């Protein structure tokens, strides 16, 4: 097991290094000089040169890469070109919106997908199965931002149950959760559809196994068999998909935040892109990539814990 973890750790670190190289290289390609951008059009060449020096833009590339990387490891993401505040502060301000949103959506997706997937698998081939899987087909095909617009149209504009956009801050948790509810539903539904389908087919596969027949033969009831034996085994593939979905949720949150005017990481990134505030773009993207790679790593580990066969292979 230790060897397996070490191997996975090594590939985690390798992935992160390559990812950081790619991101750094891409940002380097962007035309335009941040120093002259910060100082405006009328800046004197000497001032720009001095600022370039101060920002370390004159250092050789490898040194700048190491500097950027080292800074991030110590929590120093640099200073935003436009906001003139530490990028770490900007990110900290916005992540309290984006992260809860993604987690909220994840919980909603699970809450819908688990019962639906169970029901569909148990009633395989009959009306509940066909109906829920039909809905799931449509759910997978829905662009989440369009679904978000429909939600706003019906639940916010017409019925006025929820705010149509904006975020009041966490000082009033109830209002904050209310503001995040529609975005979370919009994010969760397509993911719930995928999850329900995966859980259903995983369950159907496990229900055909011999040990299920054994469990029934030794006298366990049908529901006991399903919950104790089939469901637990079917959760393993579902968990993998769930881990992959985390990255979809994070990326999806970026788009959904635009629909609801939520001040999260997504809005920050888009503003930074239009304002050419590259250090912010660079840091947010690296952070998202880190989150995704780390979650994948954790899922792999859980997977290995749940399924001893994998450990031996590693």
């Amino acid at each position, binding site marked *: 097991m230790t060897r397996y973890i070490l191997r996975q750790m090594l590939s985690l670190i390798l992935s992160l290094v390559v990812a950081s190289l790619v991101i750094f290289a*891409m940002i380097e390609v962007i035309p335009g000089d941040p120093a002259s951008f910060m100082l405006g059009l009328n800046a004197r060449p000497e001032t720009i040169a001095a600022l370039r020096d101060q920002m370390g833009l004159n250092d050789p590339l490898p040194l700048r890469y190491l500097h950027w990387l080292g800074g991030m490891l110590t929590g120093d993401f640099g200073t935003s070109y436009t906001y003139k505040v530490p990028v770490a502060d900007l990110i900290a301000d916005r992540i309290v919106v984006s992260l809860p949103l993604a987690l909220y959506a994840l919980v909603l997706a699970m809450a819908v997908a688990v019962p639906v997937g169970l029901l569909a698998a148990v009633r395989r081939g009959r009306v509940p199965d066909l109906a829920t899987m039909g809905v799931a087909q449509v759910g997978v*095909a829905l662009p989440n*931002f*369009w679904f978000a*617009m429909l939600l706003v149209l019906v639940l916010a*504009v017409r019925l006025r149950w929820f705010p149509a956009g904006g975020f009041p801050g966490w000082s009033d948790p109830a209002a904050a959760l209310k503001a995040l509810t529609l975005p979370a539903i919009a994010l969760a539904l397509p993911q719930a559809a995928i999850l329900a389908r995966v859980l259903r*087919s995983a369950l159907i596969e496990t229900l055909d196994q011999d040990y299920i027949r054994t469990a029934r033969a030794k006298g366990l009831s049908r529901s006991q068999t399903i919950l104790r034996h089939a469901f637990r085994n079917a959760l393993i593939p579902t968990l993998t998909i769930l881990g992959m979905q985390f990255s979809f949720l994070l990326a999806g949150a970026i788009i959904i935040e*635009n629909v609801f005017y939520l001040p999260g990481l997504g809005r920050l990134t888009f503003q930074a892109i239009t304002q050419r505030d590259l250090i912010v773009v660079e840091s947010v993207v690296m952070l998202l*990539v880190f989150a995704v790679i780390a979650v994948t790593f954790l899922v792999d580990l859980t997977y290995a814990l749940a399924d001893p066969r994998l450990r031996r292979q590693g």
Partner: protein
Amino acid sequence: MRVSLTLGLLLAGMALALALVSAIWTPHDIQAMALADKLNPPSPKHWLGTDQFGRDILSMLMVGARTTIAVALVAVGIGMAFGVPLGLWAAAVSGSGLDQAIMRGNDLIFAFPSLVIAILITAVFGPSAINAILAIGIFNIPVFARVTRAGALPLWTLDYVRAARIAGKGAARISLEHLLPNLMNLLIVQGTIQFSLGILAEAGLSYVGLGAQPPTPSWGRMLAEAQTLFAIAPHVAIFPGLAIVLTVLGLNLAGDGLRDALDPRLRRAR
């Protein structure tokens, strides 16, 4: 499962037909603005209503279909053009360091949140339909490489492949002449799935302003423009969204149906 294949092909075919027809005919000219007719609800004259400039939404949808479908289709092409040879290559040298390197590289691309990187690419090279194609296409490469490798590996142990080897054919020729034709089913099914994902991705990128640029209409851009209007004129948002849902749904159904039709072994599992 025949039903899903027919329905799927019908829906996807309809979107394709609309896109093709728009090249020679649209109900109204989408260049012509008629501000007197702006934001009209659906009527006999404008079946799906008009947008904020008085343009016919059905005509916009038809022309927009061209952009959206072209982006997704070319992105699938990029994925296949690079992914399939990589997958074949990895399978031919399976177990070697090269195979490992190719597959680890794939895992790496997989690990990136695709939309985030698409955003980065378009941020770096500027928003345009071409860059959207590249951004989506790059993420299709590892998908096709994996599917191809997984499909090709078992074929290498078959007798006729061994015979071809003994006859003196090289790995490249065997891959091309014997393996590739056998992988076609697999690739068509995966291509359909990636096509539908590409349409969703294009819509998302255009929606946030990183895809097709004005005046090129695309389904995602129509939704982006509807963003500030849909509360007063819901039809400007509803129809482009429906077009996306129906096309993606059609492609997914067709993909599922094709997989069942082409691979009878899977039928039992559903």
